[in-house]
């Protein structure tokens, strides 16, 4: 797959850790401002009341929950690539696994913030934690939201540990190629890794188990997220297809985000030799699959709505296609199903601009998918006398900007201070190739 020597691999990756140019810090500062904007908006909301958002009755959930699901979705492909593809021994995942895992960790961080932001009384959030207290007040583990608490926190813990474990040998590499402060830091971070045979023996074993555990986890987490809705009675939510539908959607959006991140990374860090066009093409191929699954899910929903002869269900889906939010439906069909199917053409798959453009389109489309489901469901549910619409408020937009800024802020810091490609795994690839 790659014909680079170990030395070249080390060199290419370690070069990315050179002292950054001022432009880099400008971007970091910009993102930081975004984060502060979001934080300010949140503080204002806590002070004045959640009413500064656009939510209402019937649509009591807005962009906060949409972004939550969006980020959780993004988070998924990271684990998919590093764990599932690791089990499948798909060599092409090695160049992008590290960045994807990092993306996962940061995306989960962003996602995890939103349930708090969304609360009417964020300061009481600890009510949701099973903290021992003499009043014997405990959370309700029958609630899908508690499933979320358990699943998301598990996911964050596991994916971070997984990420760090994979990082250790590379930290050792950096340690051995650096001097001064950086050397000291990485000496500590790499836990004295020396690549001794007994370390490798247990490491590869442990890494395998990690992969084996992360795989069911990643599937369970987005299923649980989907049950936030599927366990409700609301038409358009209350359906058994949701778990697979959401998991596929999550991977779809995650892969798109991988492309969105990898393509600039590859360009800026001159990773062309490592993250080859074949790698991107493979991602694109996977997206064809996920895109088709998502498309199938859309179709199935409509079929069942019609086939069930349930007037409420059918009206809800009729409205989804013809009501005030119809554009959302068309966004998601276009961007998640039709546009990605362009990847069937080899020319498109192998053209970097196309890959980038389409990945952006899918990110956009997946956001709208969540909008259509979360807002569309309740806006037009059982009680016609309560039907109503929803539009995000300025505060919500600021917080949304804040979350994206936070994500890119963290990612920028990471890729300039940590090896953004796994040298060890690249060497393995080279080794097996050579």
């Amino acid at each position, binding site marked *: 797959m790659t014909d680079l020597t170990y030395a070249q691999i080390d060199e290419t990756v370690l070069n990315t850790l050179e002292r950054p140019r001022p432009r880099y810090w400008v971007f970091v500062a910009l993102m930081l401002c975004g984060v502060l904007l979001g934080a300010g908006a949140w503080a204002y909301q806590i002070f004045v009341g959640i009413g500064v958002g656009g939510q209402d009755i019937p649509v009591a959930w807005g962009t906060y929950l949409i972004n939550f699901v969006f980020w959780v979705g993004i988070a998924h492909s990271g684990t998919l690539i590093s764990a599932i593809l690791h089990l499948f021994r798909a060599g092409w995942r090695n160049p992008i696994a590290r960045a994807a895992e990092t993306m996962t960790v940061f995306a989960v961080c962003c996602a995890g913030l939103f349930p708090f932001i969304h609360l*009417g009384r964020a300061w009481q959030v600890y009510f949701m934690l099973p903290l021992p207290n003499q009043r014997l007040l405990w959370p309700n583990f029958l609630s*899908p939201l508690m499933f979320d608490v358990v699943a998301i926190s598990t996911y964050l813990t596991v994916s971070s540990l997984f990420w760090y474990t994979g990082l250790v040998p590379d930290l050792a590499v950096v340690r051995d190629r650096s001097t001064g402060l950086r050397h000291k830091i990485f000496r500590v971070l790499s836990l004295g890794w020396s690549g001794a045979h007994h370390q490798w023996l247990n490491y590869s074993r442990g890494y395998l188990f990690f992969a084996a555990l992360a795989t069911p986890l990643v599937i369970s987490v987005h299923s649980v997220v989907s049950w936030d809705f599927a366990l409700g009675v609301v038409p358009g939510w209350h359906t058994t297809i949701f778990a697979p539908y959401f998991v596929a959607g999550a991977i779809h959006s995650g892969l798109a985000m991988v492309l969105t991140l990898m393509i600039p990374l590859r360009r800026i860090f001159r990773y062309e030799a490592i993250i080859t066009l074949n790698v991107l093409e493979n991602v694109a191929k996977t997206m064809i699959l996920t895109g088709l699954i998502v498309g199938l899910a859309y179709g199935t929903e409509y079929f069942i709505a019609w086939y069930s002869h349930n*007037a409420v269900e059918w009206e809800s889906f009729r409205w989804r296609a013809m009501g005030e939010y119809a554009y959302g439906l068309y966004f998601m069909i276009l961007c998640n199903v039709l546009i990605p199917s362009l990847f069937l053409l080899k020319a498109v798959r192998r053209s970097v601009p196309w890959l980038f453009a389409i990945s952006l389109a899918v990110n956009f489309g997946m956001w709208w998918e969540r909008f259509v489901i979360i807002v569309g469901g309740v806006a037009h549910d059982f009680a016609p006398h309560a039907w109503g619409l929803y539009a995000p408020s300025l505060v919500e937009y600021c917080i949304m900007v804040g979350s994206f800024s936070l994500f890119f802020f963290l990612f920028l810091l990471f890729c300039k201070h940590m090896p953004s490609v796994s040298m060890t795994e690249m060497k393995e690839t080279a080794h097996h190739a050579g």
Partner: protein
Amino acid sequence: MNRRTFLKLAGLGSVSFAAGCSPESPKYLYSLVQAPEDMVTGKATWYASTCRECPAGCGIIAKNREGRVVKVEGNPLHPLNRGKLCMRGQAALQAVYNPDRLKTPLLKEKDGFVPIGFDRAQALLKTKVWEAARRGADRVRLMTEVVGESQMEIFRAALKNWNSSPPVVFEPFAYEALKVANREVFGVDGLVSYRLDQADMLLAFGAEFLETWLSPVEYAWKFKAMHAARGPEKGLFFLVSPFQTLTGANADHWLACAPGTEAVVALGLVRQLLDIRRGKHLPPDLREALEKATEPYQQEAVLKLSGIPLAQYEQLVVRLTEARRPLVLGAGSGQSDANGLAANIASNLLNLLLDPELSLIDAANRHRVETAARRAEVLDLFKALFSGQSDVLILNNVNPVFNLPPENGAKAALEASNLFVVSLSDFIDETSLLADLILPGSLPLETWDDYSGWSSLVSTLQPAMGKITEAPHIGDLFLDVGFETRPVPDYKTYIAERLRKTGRIRNELEWVRTLQQGGLFPAAGQVTSASPATRPQRLPRELASPYESPPAGLAFAVAPSVRFFDGRGANKPWLCEIPDPISRVAWQSPVMIHPATAKSKGLRTADVVRVTSRWGSLEAPVYATEVVHPGLVLMAAGQGHTAYGRYAKDHGANPLGLLPSAVEPACGGTGCGLPDITLEATGRSVELAHTDGSRIQHGRAFILTTTLADLQKGPPPARAGLTMGDFPLTLPLPEGYDPKRDFYPPHDHDHYRWAMVVDLDRCIGCGACAAACYAENNLGIVGEKRIVQGREMAWLEIVRYHDERRMERVMFLPMLCQHCDNAPCESVCPVYAPHHSSEGLNNQIYNRCIGTRFCSQNCPYKVRRFNWFDWEWPEPMNLQLNPDVTVRSKGVMEKCSFCIQRIKEARTWAKNENRPIREGEVTPACVQTCPTDALVFGNLMDKDSRVRRLCDDPRAYQAMGYLNTKPAVIYLKKVLHEV
């Protein structure tokens, strides 16, 4: 009388205490060393009094907690309202605690009003009037609202001392036409009352007797007494009017006549009856005269002018002639123009023709509002004042500047420099603004008085609370300024004296007992009544010349508002916040036009239009609805104030601004509409503050109806299925469990399973329940902007749906928390904030709620309300808050609790006597006030409870029951007369 009522009356305060509750130091109440005998901290005391929110004069009992009134309810002993109260009555509290209420008199100086002391104000008034009195006759004039007999006597006496003529009683709706009709046909110079309850067929020509007409609460219960389905029986109600308001929405058949043709139809019917030889008992010459007078109103002419389809008209005639005890009501409150006059006279004649005995007309119990002066007299007074014939004008709680159409002369007269105007008003309204001295008087809930809604009875008022302001009572004020020396020590004694003089009471004890029960009433059932004695001998001269119906064209009509009456309610936030029953729009005053009219003018709901008449123009958003005649633009009265406090000012527009003020000479009144106006789009549009979503229910099982025929056939064979259509009634009890339908095992409750039955056939959609809920449960007032955002807080709302097959048919559904046995809202909460209580209530624990809002998302009825912000109760409104109910802070969910505080109160009683809670002991606020007894509350586990027995009614169903949430609110289908 149920137990709860008994307890209340037993607790009725005999003599009210003077424990003040100034907004400054409410703590003072708790630090009483010696509390007045009938005040126990934490325990409510009830005082019987009389509602003065409109001239009807219903009896009320006011709940006093720690020295302040927190709730008013109907007085169960009072024969008018029988313990019920309307929306406006409930909101009386918000006048007392209104943040814009004046605390001191205001004297107008060069640069605006300056506050002065009450003593100085009173002295000033006294000097002014006596100076004026010395200057000659009629130098002091008094214009007052309708008041009780005692107050009226004092007024007369005082004016006599000032050698001036008696007061002019001003009521915007003075029923001039109806009075003339009664005089001409019944020989009664006043306003008779009607035994609606004994009729089997009702025909109205616009009389909105469920909202504002004469005595709405009284007629609401009487209406349902005849109109609610009793087994296979059900009275019939026809309405002939160019529009439906709440009353029209309750009609079985609405004959939409062209604007201004009610009289034509009424006279046409007279003609029809004469043609079929009715009214042989009439004097022959009267008969002939009638036949001659109704000559122009042959069927063809009537149909042509009114535009009513032949089929409907024939049906009306047939039903009217077939009916055994038909009753015909005349035109609406404001209709005292030629049309209203002719319609009223014709209606009375119809009654005479249909029932020579006039057995449904009650001349013994006449409505107090009959004392109101004719509009003509009011206008004459202003003319006189303008021409400087008087020096002092005293206005007692009237607002003519707002309530009269332009060119009424009021403004000019009040601004006349040589006239000293004193307004005895608690608020700076449009009229007080022009006064030289505003001298607030104490409000009905704070004072001694009497007021007789029916001439036959006495209904007393007593202070139900300490005073918030130092304002004197008007009676006492006049005892001071109207006489050199007070004839009696105080107004209270005066009332007692008067009653003793008239022989109503004999001694102090009877006086106290009278106060205790709120008045002197015949025991229930023994209400004396008498039909009019005299019969007309000649043709009413008003019919001599035929009535000319106005030319076709876009007409304009003003409907008295069930929320604001004539506008006096507009400063009470509850009434602004609770939306209009038909349009479901709150705070704003849209013009209602027919969708066809809107289409032809390229208008859509919420587009702002300019309505222009010869006398003025206004701008308002359009609301397109099928309940108005295509040729009509309808608007509710009451809003569009330019003063009158923060809640009234600059909300909506005042439709009276378009009307002419010229009076109809024949009766001295004016109409509430005019034939030709122009309607033009402004190109702008606003967001309507409406609380509804879709106007139709898309075939869903929220409101179910059945026809009388089906009801008589008996229930169809029940085929239990799982779909919306055939899902069986599943009570929220273990027996409601069915392994075929239920995944989870059944669960039982201990002793009680609280539930409510809502009879849609009885519900008239008046919204009294919603108002009572606002008062009882400290619901936040969110205001226009937030309602637009969909953040209203009503725990109980009257959902309005149009019939998908006949859009002009409107149906109402009280929607509140259904307290489901399998409540979808409960399990989704991560912290158990909503959960199922051992007595079946769906509890919401505010302290525990963290505001995920999942419960609301998952509620199929969307009855949960969220505190998006901390709502405000500007002082002293906070004093009205019910101390038994938490005030919720921002970020928590809330909803109907079945008034759990009342359940707890009843439990305490029961526990003290260690016995279970009895049937009827727990009455939620909504159930208590419902004028038509549409709501029933009780314990489902008690096999003999009313709720349980009503569940066996073939009409019983659950809203969206097929979701198998097992709601504890059981609805009874609305019964329709087949068309």
